[in-house]
């Protein structure tokens, strides 16, 4: 598949969402588009509907109306179980912190997406095997794979944990990486290092990146920057 014909990683139009049937919209976005392989910065202070939007994109929440396509797949046409499966196969998610299951060693944490999705497992196999691919990603993200492989996730520093989370999001070549404030717990130096490594690896695996943060200062490091406050025209502010 060449990049010119690849469907956009994310395309939504006239998307409306409210938490209950009668309440006012929390999300009202006319259009938002992320091309395949594109790396987008989405500025979203708290209350801007950031978490809700990520829930919608990942298919955990269902929009009230509008169109939402991920990698060319319309999410509305999928049942909730198909959406879960789709998310497992095509999305990589990185949270603000505490991304890892504390009771699994680092290696198992990285390979976890392959357990939930055959597609991710196949992709990892094609890249040289789950373990090899997990180790390669850890190394690429600046970790000593051998050293951290069997360690409990909780033994790592926050910065290391975020890198492991990035490796987990990237394993099995998902088409879209959602990063929700992944650097807010990091200091400035490791933050910039993390962002550049993440971008590199997204490019290397052909994944689009939607990087959400309240910190507008990071916008320069991405292909394009959007402001959720501008594109989300809903009057009610998210309370979460």
């Amino acid at each position, binding site marked *: 598949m060449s990049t010119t014909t690849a469907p956009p990683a994310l395309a939504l139009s006239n998307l409306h969402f409210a938490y209950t049937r009668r309440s006012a919209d929390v999300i009202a976005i006319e259009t938002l588009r992320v091309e395949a392989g594109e790396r987008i910065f989405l500025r979203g202070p708290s209350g801007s509907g950031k978490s809700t939007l990520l829930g919608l994109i*990942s298919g955990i929440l269902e929009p009230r109306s509008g169109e939402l396509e991920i990698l060319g797949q319309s999410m509305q046409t999928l049942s909730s179980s198909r959406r879960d499966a789709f998310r497992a196969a095509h999305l990589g998610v990185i949270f603000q912190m505490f991304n890892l299951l504390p009771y699994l060693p680092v290696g198992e944490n990285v390979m976890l997406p392959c357990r939930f999705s055959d597609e991710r497992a196949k992709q990892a196999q094609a890249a040289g095997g789950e373990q090899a691919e997990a180790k390669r990603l850890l190394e690429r993200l600046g970790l000593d794979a051998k050293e951290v492989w069997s360690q409990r996730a909780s033994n790592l520093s926050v910065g290391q944990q975020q890198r492991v989370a990035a490796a987990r999001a990237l394993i099995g070549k998902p088409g879209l990486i959602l990063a929700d404030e992944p650097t807010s717990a990091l200091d400035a130096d490791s933050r910039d290092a993390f962002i550049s490594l993440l971008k590199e690896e997204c490019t290397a695996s052909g994944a689009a990146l939607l990087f959400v943060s309240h910190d507008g200062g990071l916008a320069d490091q991405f292909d394009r920057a959007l402001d959720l406050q501008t594109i989300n025209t809903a009057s009610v502010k998210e309370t979460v």
Partner: protein
Amino acid sequence: MARLPILNLALRSIGNRRATAILTVLTVAISVMLFLGVEKVRHGARESFENTISGVDLIVGARSSPVNLLLYSVFHIGDATNNITWESYETVASAPGVAWTVPISLGDSHRGHRVIGSTPGLFEHYEYGGGRHLEFASGAPFEDLFDAVIGAAVARDLGYRTGDEIVVAHGMGEVGFIEHDSNPFTVVGVLEPTGTPLDQSVMVTLDAIEAIHLGGATGSGSTLSAEELRARDLTPDQLTAFYVGLDSPVAALRLQRAINTYPEEPLQAVIPGVALAQLWSIVGVAERTLAAVAAFVVLTGLVSILTAILTSLNERRREMAILRALGARPHHVFLLLVAEAALIALAGAGLGTIATYGALNALAPLLEARFGLVLPGLTPGLYDLGIIGAVTGAAAVLGFFPAWRAYRNSLADGMTIRL
């Protein structure tokens, strides 16, 4: 969703909360141990009880109630309402189909232990524990007039050995007021423990009972010498009861009816198994209460699993959100928690079973030697597997509750992680 590692995740997650998990497993193990232990001893006691006497097809005595006859003729509890005549005994003994009879004459005691007047046939035909014969720890059955055989408990409590002389007293009680002391008995045999009332008994010949009472039933006993007594016809006039063995057990019902309607004397014949079951239905209440208590203890153990999982739920919301983000479906979250509850219960029940059988195997020789209590099956069987399965299943069902809450949480939280 293939290769979904829910079980693996559940195991790891339990391992992560090792201290709580071990305590919970121990709680379940102890409760299962108690339950299985009670069950084993209960069945052992019941079997031991119902096998107090076997190989006997009918017990015949004066007419009262079957349980009463059983109580005095086998368990030596209470007294006979009436004696039966020797003639009636001979009539039944010579009835067609009767293979053997063992007469029993009660009424005397030795230092609180019942004295049974009988024939050597007692040692031949009395069976207990499902076909086990009486065995001698030392000595042999009585032969001579003033020979006595004592039960294991009598020998242990009073420190008697073969060759010792003992004096029999009239009536029951620690201190006999009327002692047949002019005719002492010689212990010629000591029985192995049986777990039956015979352990507590002194067995002598039927003739001896007659001999010591020649001076009159309430008298101080015969003053005649043993030699003089031997010369006499010591066939008794009366008996307390007798055991009957048949050529074919099928005839038991017919003979029972014949005895119960015997015109010469009000007799009663009972089938030991039937009467024992009847008696057990009375004394079995305690046993069933014990079982119910043990079952509730198991329930307590199961509830402790529930508590352990429920208290961990809030701190695990993040874990659930991560799993959701990785593509786990809400029902996987549900299954994860059910699996955790079931695994803890499985480990607890397994451990409890192993510990129970370990303890039983260690204690069995002692129980048998001391109480004659033979525990059925000292290796885990289908029943125990069933218990393990039931405990695990019950835990899984109880696990639905925290699982449902986690399911609801994960639906509500989605990938949002609330700290």
